[in-house]
């Protein structure tokens, strides 16, 4: 006798649809641009990073906001208008 065939249900959750976006266009050059350093902890890395960025790339207008937690200090809507790129370090 053939064994019974069962319908077995899916235990997984439902992923809601997510609209996906392209990356923002990249910069043609760093010179003259305002680049924001969003620091989230790890001062062993982020302190020398900021120092080297400022010394090796003097033609960039560097801005910075710092948090010691994984959550960055956000740019305001006004600041976003004058910011050309953002570096987030370190995500953990």
């Amino acid at each position, binding site marked *: 006798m053939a064994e019974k*065939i069962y319908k*077995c249900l899916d235990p997984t959750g439902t*992923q809601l649809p997510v609209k996906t976006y392209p*990356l923002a266009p990249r910069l043609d050059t760093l010179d003259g641009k305002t680049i924001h350093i969003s620091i989230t902890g790890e001062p062993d890395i982020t302190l020398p990073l900021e120092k080297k960025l400022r010394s090796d790339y003097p033609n960039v207008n560097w801005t910075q906001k710092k948090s010691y937690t994984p959550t960055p200090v956000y740019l305001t809507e006004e600041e976003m208008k004058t910011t050309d790129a953002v570096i987030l370090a370190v995500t953990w």
Partner: protein
Amino acid sequence: MPYITKLEKAGIPTVIVDLEDQHEMVKQVALQYGVPKLRYLPASRMLHGEKDVENFIEPMLELLTRPLTDEEKESGMYMPPSQRILFEGTLEEAEIFYQQTRHVPKPLDAPIAVYTDGLPVVIPTEERVEKMLEGTSHKPDELITYQRDGIGKKGDVVRFLPMERTATVERVAVNAVTAGCKPEHLPAVLAIAESGCGTGTTTFWGQWCCISGPYAKEIGMNSGVGMLDPGSPANMPVGRAYQLMAINLGGAVPGVNRMNSIGSPFNSGGTCFAENAAGLPSGWKGLNEEYGFKKDESIVLVINSGGYIVGNQFSPGGYRAFQKSGHGGMARRMDVKGIPGPHNWLEYLVPQLWAGREGGYTFIMVPEMAQHLYEIGFKSKDEVYQWLWEKSKEPLKQYRLRSWPDEGTNGWLGIERTSGKHWKELPDDYMVPVVDEPTDNCIIIGGGDEEICQQLTGRRGMLGTAPVFSIDAWR
């Protein structure tokens, strides 16, 4: 991560510096927030910062200037398929199917079960799930929503962590079947589902549930001897259901988005136990009443925190000698030699409670030991919580030598909560509580007669929210 995706959507190019083992998590969160091709590169966990920066600074800046690939210019819709029937076949075939694994690369580098916790499960046939659904009056296609204001707003759809997926009552019932639950367990499993079944980050790694109220007796839960041990046909499957929901409804995968470096035995097989309400001293509230419910209402407390157990600091015989006649080591340390009790046995624990960590504990104590606290003058749990909070205070000079406060105080740039002053304005001898709030500690009465108190690490709420869910709402 939502912040970075917001910037990209606004036309601001970004680059993320992460740690190599967390690439999969970054990729997954980037997709969840709609910018799947975020650019990132790793810093080192071990290199000296200056050397590390030398290595990655140029590649990092190149990620801001290198033109986009065709793939990076794509937009679209992420909509993975969802089906009700996952598999058709014999029970034997289904057992093999549900036990399938996938290889998760480093930092794990081992096979991990796709649909289970690694152990065999009860196969969720349509018939079994239908039977399970008899355990609730809620409709199978009803989405899981918050039944009251708490960690979410009443009526809002619960998003299961970490993938922020949604689930229906039926999907929860499927997981209850796989966990080995009976229909009468379903209201508890649905209440636990309301928590979103988080699995935490790299450090908040232990999940456990405690049921309070008459429901615990109704389904035969063990709140006595060995209540954290195996054997109970109610405690075990309900605890397991949490973990299966985290895996299936939330999409938690070790090494991908469940990054607990070592993990916790609480999560192996799941952990659920019950409060022994009959063991509460007169006037002490059960967990249900602590959270504003009535004594005859049933709730589940769902904790997701740094999870390990401390205990066994004194011998039960030594405890009895201390309380009965003031003899033994506990009496000598407490300076009550020859003086009959009751004595405050918590004093014995205090020196080590916060020596190595900060934050609240859940104290699981047997009824006799709670009664001793009552007899020496603690007429409510709140009085014990307040006493413990006072005892957690230490001079700021000492508090500065701890690790987590570097982050918790935002690099000592924030405000100290009890004084309202900036950390840097406070004198060295300012007394700082190592536990944020008195009620970050929690007392649960349970266990057998042997004089034992176990302390579970981790405060009971995150960000001021009460992780308590009504079971009655899901009957």
